[in-house]
């Protein structure tokens, strides 16, 4: 590799914890975040389980240091991005060119879906938000301003692969000398819009999801945020705490098959995984663990699984952590990046909770029990989304 990209810090909030330590404790304790919806006001509170963060906006705002009137997505983003930057603890951070590359898919949808009701009754309603306040970029700028980041700010929105692409873009900026430090990741809050949208596609499980199970019925939505602090070699050399991991590979491909479904052979999935391997210079046998996209929909798991076994022979330890966190959409690759790095740091592999029956189309089965005390040097993390957007990233131990 020409330029190494080091992970100097990480931050996460999800239904299984408000920070990285709490997330790790829940992963270790096999504690799922999927339960009955109690915060989001929806008709489906009793019937569609989700991995909801059991804090009100006011409580999240307290943690974030922002107004409770801000979109829930922004509150989540702030909490995790700040944790990541604090964790990095970069000396004299002001002397470097720092950027924030954030991702989200819903922006301030929680606000919009409330205000829109008034708008339907009166197109001149006083409830209309300030012109600037309901797009994806608003969320990023709010967090950037609060963190004092001005150098390079942008937002990526490629559905469920968004935050993987944010990390890749951040790494490319650093590699090409356009930035020194990039806080990269993503966020998304639960909303009625996405809950009803996925429900209309009939891909939500009415029970806690079971990815890669032959009897899987669909996904559960989740919410959260996950960020990593990517730094150049030069910045890494100044850190008091030696980075434990590097971002060693990434690739973005398109399945170009269907707007909301994957090709049966997982063409885009294959290209993303192969591309990330090629960049990292690793052969497939060097990957110790794959954090699967593994949503639990019949279509995703079959396409992804088929592509995995085309590349990996034998298939390494794999699992989906969505039975813990639900599918957090624009946040998932950010949260799962944090989990990948935790796997490297702690020598653990997380189980694919609730999985019972092997898929008959596949030769392999994800791990079903927590694996401890293993050497985890390289982790691949997959994120695939609507529009055929397929991205894979690889994290490697910094030895």
């Amino acid at each position, binding site marked *: 590799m020409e330029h190494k990209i080091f992970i100097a810090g990480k931050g996460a909030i999800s239904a299984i914890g408000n920070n990285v330590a709490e997330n790790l404790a829940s992963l270790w304790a096999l504690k799922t975040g999927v339960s009955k919806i109690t915060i989001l006001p929806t008709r489906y509170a009793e019937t569609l389980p989700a991995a909801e963060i059991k804090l009100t906006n006011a409580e999240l705002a307290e943690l974030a240091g922002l107004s409770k009137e801000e979109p829930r997505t922004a509150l989540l983003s702030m909490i995790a991005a700040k944790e990541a930057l604090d964790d990095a603890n970069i000396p004299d951070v002001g002397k470097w060119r720092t950027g924030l590359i954030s991702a989200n898919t819903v922006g301030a949808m929680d606000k919009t879906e409330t205000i829109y009701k008034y708008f339907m009754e009166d197109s001149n309603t006083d409830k209309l938000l300030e012109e600037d306040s309901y797009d994806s970029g608003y969320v990023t700028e709010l967090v950037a301003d609060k963190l004092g980041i001005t150098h390079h700010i942008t937002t990526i929105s490629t559905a469920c692969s968004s935050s993987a692409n944010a990390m890749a873009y951040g790494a490319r*900026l650093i590699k090409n000398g356009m930035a020194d430090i990039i806080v990269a990741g993503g966020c998304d809050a639960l909303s009625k819009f996405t809950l009803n949208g996925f429900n*209309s596609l009939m891909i939500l499980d009415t029970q806690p999801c079971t990815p890669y199970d032959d009897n899987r019925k669909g996904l559960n939505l989740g919410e959260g945020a996950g960020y990593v602090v990517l730094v150049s070699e030069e910045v890494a050399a100044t850190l008091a705490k030696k980075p434990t991991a590097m971002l060693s590979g990434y690739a973005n491909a398109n399945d170009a098959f*269907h707007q909301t479904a994957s090709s049966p052979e997982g063409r885009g999935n294959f290209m993303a995984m192969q591309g990330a391997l090629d960049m990292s210079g690793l052969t497939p046998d060097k990957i110790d663990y794959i954090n699967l996209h593994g949503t639990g929909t019949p279509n995703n798991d079959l396409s992804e699984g088929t592509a995995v076994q085309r590349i990996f022979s034998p298939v390494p330890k794999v699992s989906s952590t969505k039975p813990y966190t639900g599918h957090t959409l624009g946040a998932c690759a950010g949260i799962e990046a944090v989990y990948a790095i935790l796997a490297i740091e702690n020598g653990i592999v997380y189980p694919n909770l609730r999985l019972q029956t092997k898929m008959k189309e596949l030769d392999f089965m994800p791990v079903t029990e927590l694996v401890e005390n293993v050497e985890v040097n390289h982790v691949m993390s997959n994120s695939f989304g609507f529009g*055929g957007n397929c991205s894979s990233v690889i994290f490697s131990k910094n030895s």
Partner: protein
Amino acid sequence: MGHKDDNSAELKSPLGDLGVRLFINGIGCISPQRTFDNAEFLPEVKQFETNRLTCIDPDYTKFFDAGSIRRMGRLMKYGTAAGLIALNDAGIKAPGAISTGTGLGLPEISQKFLRSMLEVEETIVSPTAFIQSTHNTVSSNIALLCGCYEHNNTFSHKGFSFESALTDAALLAKEGVDNILVGAYDEVSDYKYAAMRKTTELREEPCNSTELYTDTRGIIAGEGSAFFVLAKEKNEKTYGEFVGNKTFYKPVDSDVALDEIYSFLDAHGLGVADIDLLITGMNGDANSDEFTEDVCEDFFEHTTIAAYKHLCGEYMTSSAFAFWLASQIMKAQQVPDTLIIRKGERAPKNILIYTHHRHNHSLMLFKAC
């Protein structure tokens, strides 16, 4: 800042330090003006007497089958078609990568889903609109239609959306990718328009779009889509060279903006004297235009100063419309009268776009071939 009399400033470093060159080899634009036919360049200027400009649609049956036309939202149609026009213009079937920017994604169709969900109180909603609601719908639809399996990105960050896609394209070129389709798309939805009317300095009706800068009292809402094929080699189709771009965030005053402009030009071996045409983002808002005018004062009299938002309106990715104008101007080697705020004396060889959407400021530099 050396004043050069000749018009042949050498490019010190195309695309910053990336060391690659990018030529604009295909363009496609659908906007409130008649821009979808590349054989002509603003044959007539459409005047609007409203503060909301909407796109002139081409004949979509040339691009999509009847079933698709029925299912697709308005932006999905004109966004996708603009991309296909650019590919066709460049004579390319599938590009090496696709990178796009959109400030607001696909609001009209997203709100169609939202509206029906609220109307039936979350009971039964058709997925057709939801499927088109993600911000990457247009870029992925183009990929689907042209069979592009490569890198596909969508940035959604206000006035940096298209700009980030351009940076992505420059990085891709450095990484070895050629024939990159880069573009942007936005629409003004009923909801957005209502919010703008409520909360921003939207120009009062009746008004005339062509008098946007003469009587500075408010912006007009707009929309559009523009796509470009950026390639490493020039050919007989080439409109000109995209030399590089830069963004800056929340400049406190016009001096900060000028510092950014000087350092950007300097990085490319140029000074303000070398700019033949400056395309500004003046939009009719008094404060904003005063800021831009302050910046313009540093440009010499031989530089033509232009403005474009009376043609397309104000929206987050209007810079892509300006990019389209720059492309056409480089090829035609003439600046349409409708754009000119102050006429300079030089042929448009070195073109600088300095535009902004609220606090997101954008610089883009071009050189005619």
